[in-house]
């Protein structure tokens, strides 16, 4: 029940920070070769996006994997992940030359974090609320979404809870359904809020053009 490992891991990283608009962007370069990027909202101190770049075996540029936040989507979106960050070979794969992609009617999962909650939205889910069965699975450290009509099944990992050494609890989950979207809300346990505050304190020391003190003062006062 401790987030010390995670804090140590963050401390070990080489951190870079910049401010663009009302966002503070932080890039972590960990000693084991992984990279993590976070976008913080300067007004609320909440993480809007977090992405990982894990090192690849066979060289080549690895892609960013989005842990939370929206994926930037364009109108003629091509789901070909291979030319997402492709350095040399992007040129010879035209836009419609994709391998395989989920059709645009398939359910789409996004995650976002608010001050009190972690939220998942599954879009393109037309079935009524009683079809879904959302349960916490402490053994798998994740939340499992099932459907009684066997149309959708997803194991959603909760890395935040892993980082502070807890497992998801059924009592914290609430589910809504509206506008073709299933919304799963998970109430953050106190230890997670504490960890996030600690991370913000850690980031205070990272040099950036603007002063983080004012922002943090407001946050700690809550």
């Amino acid at each position: 029940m401790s987030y010390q490992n995670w804090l140590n891991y963050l401390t070990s990283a080489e951190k870079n920070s910049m401010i663009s608009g009302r966002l503070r962007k932080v890039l972590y370069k960990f000693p084991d070769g992984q990279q993590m990027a976070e976008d913080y909202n300067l007004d609320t101190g909440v993480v809007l996006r977090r992405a990982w770049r894990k090192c690849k075996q066979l060289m080549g540029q690895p892609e960013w994997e989005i842990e939370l936040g929206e994926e930037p989507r364009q109108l003629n979106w091509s789901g070909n992940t291979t030319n997402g960050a492709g350095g040399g070979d992007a040129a010879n794969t035209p836009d419609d030359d994709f391998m395989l992609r989920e059709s645009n009617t398939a359910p789409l999962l996004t995650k976002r974090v608010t001050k009190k909650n972690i939220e998942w939205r599954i879009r393109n889910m037309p079935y009524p609320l009683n079809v879904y069965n959302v349960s916490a699975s402490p053994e798998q450290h994740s939340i499992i979404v099932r459907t009684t009509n066997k149309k959708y099944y997803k194991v959603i990992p909760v890395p935040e809870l892993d980082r502070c050494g807890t497992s998801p609890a059924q009592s914290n989950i609430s589910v809504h359904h509206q506008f073709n979207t299933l919304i799963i809300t998970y109430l953050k346990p106190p230890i997670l809020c504490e960890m996030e505050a600690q991370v913000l304190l850690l980031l205070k020391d990272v040099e950036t053009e603007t002063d983080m003190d004012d922002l943090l003062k407001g946050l700690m006062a809550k």
Partner: protein
Amino acid sequence: MTEAEKIEVRDITRIERIGAHSHIRGLGLDDVLEARAVSQGMVGQKDARRAAGVVVQMVREGKIAGRCILLAGEPSTGKTAIAVGMAQALGTETPFTSMSGSEIYSLEMSKTEALSQALRKSIGVRIKEETEIIEGEVVEIQIERPATGTGQKVGKVTLKTTEMETNYDLGNKIIECFMKEKIQAGDVITIDKASGKVNKLGRSFTRARDYDATGAQTRFVQCPEGELQKRKEVVHTVTLHEIDVINSRTHGFLALFSGDTGEIKQEVRDQINNKVLEWREEGKAEINPGVLFIDEVHMLDIECFSYLNRALESDMAPVVVMATNRGITRIRGTNYRSPHGIPIDLLDRMIIIRTVPYSEKEVKEILKIRCEEEDCVMHPDALTILTRIATDTSLRYAIQLITTANLVCRRRKATEVNTEDVKKVYSLFLDENRSSKILKEYQDDYMFSEITEKEEDFGIGGGSKRRLDIGAGDAEAMEH
């Protein structure tokens, strides 16, 4: 529909050609590395095969780098056959690169570059990598071809597991894969998301009743459980050379397919060596050293030999097997004579396996095996005559007579080759001995026979000048 049938037929009738060593399936050794008399296409040569078996064992253990083995023996005593047998015994997992000594002489690449590429092609690296695969049962598949026959195909597939179901749009390349694997509703498949490789696992149990006639090889499998997309650890086997090419910035990985790799900088190689060693320490990769086989090794010159001296000392070097049929001869590129045409200092680093000429009985066995390989039924008497021919002339000549005699036999609509057929082809086709004898006898009737030994140098010079003239004439003709 008819078009689909045509494609099917084309796939099935693949022609397998019979090469000089296609009858060899291994070294023919038993568990304790003793050579069996006739096994896996190998006959006789027991000592050499036993020695090769020890080498194979050494490669399999993979601990020793940069050893050099020389197969030395007279022409047609099975040196290449032993090398092919070693390759077969090592299996497909171990890289076995086969090259001829003359292959290194290219205008596009320096000799040492060609050698070091060959050396690095012979070191395999097994890399464990996590990839995303999609595993599910096909519920429905639609592939629309445009009416004109060419152009973009549009495909959709619905996959399901016991828990969920998703629709996918298919790209052009993957549609080809689906058609090649003949994926249809009810099949359980996996798709590698990165490479787009489609793999058919079998048919779903729930669809077992759909067809009453199924092939014997149809496997029935359960519908997969859980999520469609899974992360799985897969093992890639690549060679060091392939990693080099992927990382040599100038060409990118496309060079692998075109074969035009050019020279790869030593810095790139060093970097990759370090990286691979790092991965090995982390347990992500495993080095799988193989064998480089250089046939006709006396064709290498002194520079290559001294390069090999150095290259074999690297701990990333494979086991090198060389073969030569030369005795004491000039080292290419020098005026010195040396055993096998190889400098003494390199010979000193080698262990030498000698192949001995085949006995008459062994020759007969080899001919029998070749007859089987070429689907040729031969009367025992004909085989005896052929064996006699083989001992008098050469084994290769006798093997060539099998094919021709078989054709002659088929012309007279018989199924078995008899002595007459063999005699006929023996008179139709000359062997090297008879041909040179005839040349000596009728030397004077052939063209340019007036050139005597003394005048030879001058004569050759004149000849080449004459050829030059002809060339110039051609060029002129082209211009007009």
